């Protein structure tokens, strides 16, 4: 059990005071009375032998709400991640959503001999340089396009929008034909072997191309490449930047509309990784105001209190997750905005999916990706 002790020490779980603030803010606990971050920590401390078979450790959606509320900075998401890794070693496995299609895609991508053919969605007008050491990390959006075709989400629109923005800002970048998934969902679901395979394949590919810097528009890729790759791979030395951190983007000028009014009214869904993990609340909002010429109406819960999109690493998606998503959609609908703008492809997929399954009763607000909105509205008119 010494390893569990290490995990507890690393994530500061021993400082848990049993105060229950985490449970009070946890979106999963709100709909699943069985689930409580506090009780999982307590069980791990008092009955460590029982914790690996506890079904509740798979219910956490990793939104980081508990950690930012915790007075003693218990890193709950990391704690859960390690518990899942250990739980797998004890023979437990999660129930995957979508029959495990995303998990299989990630495992197949992790194989060394894979030579992908994944860039045929990039339009001709996008300028990709072959002589630069900066890469745009696309993420899994081409695969999401195929997997979630039925629910009507096109994730590559987000990547295309981000690439157009970079073009417009005058940043030269290349894209990798054989880029793998960053592995965010595998490591969060405790599949360390799968994550290491993907990471090693990515590092090999990036080194082969002499890449020194990565720009990505996906918050989860950003977190994984910046934080987890540095943690798990000793030879990781590539600079990682999120699109909202590129200063040249903010120098793009967009003429205000002729009427003097904002072109559109939007409300913004903070992604858990970009928001609560990296505290980038203002950057995407500034982008919406200046580049999309949009009027921003905040939802009831926003910034560090933003409700998560409800389902994190493609597993255990059930009634609890749907209720969280419905709650968020209701908040978005109440703003009266034209668009619910997301900055993470998964927020867009999950909320659109919830909207579809709610049918006629669901909120009708249109869900759109931030980079797609920018590139298709104000930026296009200013070409």
């Amino acid at each position: 059990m010494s390893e569990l002790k290490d995990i507890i020490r690393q994530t500061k779980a021993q400082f848990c005071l049993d105060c229950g603030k985490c449970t009070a803010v946890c979106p999963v606990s709100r709909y699943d009375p069985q689930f409580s971050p506090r009780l999982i920590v307590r069980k791990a401390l008092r009955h460590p032998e029982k914790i690996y078979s506890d079904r509740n450790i798979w219910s956490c959606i990793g939104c980081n709400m508990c950690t930012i509320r915790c007075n003693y900075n218990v890193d709950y998401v990391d704690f859960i991640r390690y518990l899942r890794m250990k739980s797998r070693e004890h023979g437990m496995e999660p129930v995957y959503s979508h029959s495990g299609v995303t998990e299989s895609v990630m495992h197949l991508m992790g194989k060394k001999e894979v030579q992908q053919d994944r860039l045929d969605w990039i339009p001709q007008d996008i300028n990709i340089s072959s002589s630069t050491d900066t890469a745009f990390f696309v993420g899994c959006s081409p695969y999401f396009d195929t997997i979630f075709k039925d629910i009507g989400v096109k994730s590559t629109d987000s990547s295309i929008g981000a690439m157009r923005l970079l073009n417009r800002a005058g940043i030269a970048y290349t894209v990798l034909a054989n880029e793998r998934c960053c592995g965010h969902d595998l490591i969060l679901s405790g599949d360390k072997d799968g994550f290491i395979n993907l990471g090693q394949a990515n590092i090999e590919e990036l080194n082969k191309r002499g890449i020194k810097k990565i720009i990505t528009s996906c918050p989860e890729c950003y977190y994984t490449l910046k934080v987890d790759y540095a943690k798990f791979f000793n030879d990781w030395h590539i600079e990682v930047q999120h699109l909202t951190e590129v200063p040249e983007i903010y120098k793009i000028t967009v003429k205000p509309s002729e009427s003097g009014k904002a072109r559109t009214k939007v409300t913004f869904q903070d992604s858990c990784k970009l928001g609560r993990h990296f505290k980038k609340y203002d950057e995407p909002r500034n982008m919406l105001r200046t580049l999309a010429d949009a009027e921003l109406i905040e939802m009831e819960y926003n910034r560090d209190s933003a409700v998560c999109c409800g389902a994190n690493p493609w597993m255990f998606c059930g009634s609890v997750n749907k209720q969280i998503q419905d709650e968020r959609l209701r908040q978005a609908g109440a703003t009266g905005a034209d668009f619910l703008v997301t900055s993470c492809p998964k927020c867009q997929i999950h909320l659109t999916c919830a909207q579809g399954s709610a049918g006629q009763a669901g909120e009708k607000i249109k869900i759109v990706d931030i980079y797609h909105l920018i590139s298709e509205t104000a930026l296009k008119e200013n070409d």
Partner: protein
Amino acid sequence: MTAKILIFSCNWDGWSCIDSAANEGLGYPASVNIIKLTCLSSLNSGFILKAFENGADGVMLLGCKNQQCQYGQFNESIEKEYNKAKDIIKMLGVKGDRIMLARMEPFDGRGFIEQLNGFLHEIKNLAVPAGAQKGTDKP
């Protein structure tokens, strides 16, 4: 070496063909494995990809002819998942047609064996394997 094939067969016309082939004494290589389902429409692209992840060289979906599905949903669901899996496999850079959708008349054992042999032959001619054996690429 014979290609490893996984067959997802429906419980009705698909299974009846396998049954007939056995009754007629028609054989197929031991590298062909069969999983019986109630209906092919219960199959999701995730299961097809799981087969490739575990080292299959090809996947065959064996079901009823159009309009003969016992549950009346053959077309909509399975074709969608079949196309999805095909698109993903293509994106992963796997060459060739490695997923086959075979719609059979009931009790057509000979037809099933012909289709299977054709598929085995096609896959054998593809130089690149669909995926390495599970476990060989672990760190």
